[in-house]
């Protein structure tokens, strides 16, 4: 899809969408959003870019192979989930930092959990999309 217009627009849309996806991710605990939608947004951003510039270039942007992003994200989620074991609590128990951080609000294990989800969603969606694009 070698449309100059589209390509140029995508170039600028990419950071915008990524920014927005982080925004969606972080505010999920307080307002609609969260790791899923955030991750989907981020994935969509990259997909858009790949539409415009092709796969090779997109891959070089993503840097980390999305196939490895999945286990990394999972690992983050798992760590967040099992961290309560250390203090002898059931899995998934929310562990909270006592003081709320400005802007993000309370920081706790569930935030990291959501970040893990975010990464997994990006990883898996991109894996799916990239594999398709590669085989077309």
């Amino acid at each position, binding site marked *: 899809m070698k449309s100059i217009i589209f390509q140029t627009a995508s170039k600028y849309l990419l950071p915008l969408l990524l920014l927005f996806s982080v925004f969606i991710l972080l505010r999920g*605990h307080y307002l609609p959003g969260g790791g899923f939608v955030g991750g989907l*947004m981020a994935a969509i951003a990259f997909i858009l870019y790949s539409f415009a510039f092709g796969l090779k270039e997109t891959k070089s942007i993503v840097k980390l192979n999305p196939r490895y992003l999945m286990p990394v994200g999972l690992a983050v989620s798992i760590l967040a989930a099992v961290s309560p074991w250390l203090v002898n609590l059931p899995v998934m128990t929310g562990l909270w930092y006592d003081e709320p951080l400005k802007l993000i609000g309370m920081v*706790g294990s*569930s935030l990291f959990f959501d970040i893990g989800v975010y990464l997994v*969603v990006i*990883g898996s969606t991109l894996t799916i999309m990239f594999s398709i694009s590669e085989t077309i």
Partner: protein
Amino acid sequence: MIFAVISGFILAALVPLFSSFARNLIPKIYPFLPLGIFIYLGTCFSQVTQNAPMHWSYNWVPSFGVNLDFRLDGLALLFGMLITGIGTLVFFYSSYYLKEDKYLDRFYGYLSMFMAAMLGLVLSDNLISLFVFWELTSISSFFLIGYKNDDPSSRKSALMALGITGFGGLVLLAGLIWIGFVGGSYSIIELVNSSELIKSHEAYPWIIGLLFIGAFTKSAQFPFHFWLPGAMKAPTPVSTYLHSATMVKAGIYLLARFTPVLGGTDSWNWTLILVGGITMLYAAAHSLFRTDLKSILAYSTISALGILVFLLGVGTEDALLAAGIFILTHALYKATLFLITGIIDHETGTREVTSLGGLQKVMKPVALAGYLAALSSAGVPLFLGFISKEIMYESTFHFSNWAIILTASIVLTKVFLFVAGFWVGIKPFTGNLPQEHAKAKMPSPLLWIPPVFLAGLCVLFGVFPGILDAFMQTVFNSMSPEGEVIHLALWHGLNWVLVLSLLTLGLGFALYKFLKPSQSLKGKLAPFDKFAPIELMERIGITFQSFAGSWTGFFQNGYLRNYVISILIFLTVLAGYRLYDGVDIHLDWSQISDITPSEFLVVVLMVTSIFFALITKTRTGVIVALGIIGLANCLFFLYYSAPDLAMTQFSIDTLTVLLFMLVLFQLPKNRSFSTRKLRVRDGALSLMFGVLISILALEVFEAPSYTEVSEYYAENAYLLAKGKNVVNVILVDFRGIDTLVETVVLVIAAMGVFSLLKLNLNPFNKE
């Protein structure tokens, strides 16, 4: 006692170990196993004959009442000694008979296993353990019949034998459990006490029916008899051991064993008389149409088994006694005949009676054994056969109104068997020695001693039946606990029985002189073959096989839509029926809110898009319609306060569209496949399902709702879980595990897509 049983299994299990380094030792060592056990049983003899059965018990699966309860009483001892005694001879016999065989080690393994199973069977007092050993005899028989496994007919016979006995076994299992269920115990000895309870129970006919099927299949009763002639594919020692002396008698053993528990009713007696009677006559007559020695023996064995069943059916004390003695008698002479058949086969290479004769010139001791066994079989005085025959006639002769018919049939059977016995035991040895067999030699003593020994026993017991008194008494008491004192004698006085006995001999001899075994005789039976049970059974088998094919083909027809239809109909009918049956449809309008125009609009949008998706011809049209449906869905979510859902749904719809777009253009042109009629049918079906779901949704919606859980979430989302978007709090905290797992689903899906697209192991692919 347990060691007696277990040792066989152990030796069998050791075969694969030994065979690597001590292959040749096996035939030399293993025969001492039955011998040892025989001697052990011999030491128990005096205790058992004093009516003090020996016990040994181990709780195996006590939770179901399954114990290894071994109980050595008279009946068990009789069988045990037959098993080990004849076993010893067969083990020795085989070590020479099958000397050349490559897989002799396996053979001894099976044989040991069989012997152990058989011992376990007759020693078990527990119904379930009895069954365990019962099945083990069937399976070892399967391996033994199929021993010459490169021969297709061997394999077929093994399968058939296993099929019949396996089927009977399973039926028997049901019967045994039923007995235990009704009688409250799995111990036979305890069941004797609840005999009346069981007999008066409504399930009694079923129970004995099941038991009979088990016994009849195993003991080759009409119409299940046909596997036995087939089983003659097994090496002759096996036929001797399993298919004449021991295993086939397991059914008889079972009936005898259960006589004190279940016997004595009309249904019990008459079924056995009828089946036994038919079997003995049918098989005895059949034996005369055979020319293969083993075939003749097979049919005469079936006939003998029929006699035994018949006698157990007659069920009087005389009859039971006769059965007890005949078990021994038959085992002795029939084993002898089988063994000499084996020798003849081994030395001359044929078992065709028409081509045999004059062999006494080259193998005198074998001939002697043959003569003695034939005479015992015929029931000539001074042979054990005579004594058993006498008591047999005695029992039928005094059996109520039916005495004449019963007696006549048993006499007739005996006449036929006379001839069969002579054909096998005498005919091959007398007359002229045909040229082609002139080179036949005297076999090794390992071969001829066993039959001679057995034949000797026939005479010994025939002349001095008193030796057996004590033994037979305990055997008899096992079947009839309150039975009288017995005394076996050669001379019973001059009476009708003696007359009949002599008549039998006379008729038999006349028939022997008159009737010569011949191929043409065999051929005369051919027209009736299609009515023979084996034919019927095979036809049933074929029909069943083709039924299997059509059933399977009908359901597993390869068309996904038919599968969906069958699932759907099942669900709709089931749920619909339950809905109709148990739910009072009611409507409460109070819960239902008004429709605003914008909502209505979304509804219209959605409904129209759905229909559009259904009817449109282009795939892209469908996808766009799907997009609109998704959008409408989002609007619903939005209207009804689910912003998170709306966002997620929209993102995912977009991605799905993307996915479709990336894939679709590679699909072939869209074609319309189905006819109008089919579409109408499918439409009706799906409508049915849709209506069902709608009604259910409505009903559930109308049901009172509980909000405990969601209230808890709402209350604690911020206070405890420190989040204000409750949905997200549920996702990452309250039900975080769900979320973790669903990300795993995504990961796996991604892996799947990746491997689907990148990995292609098809041999000839254009890509």
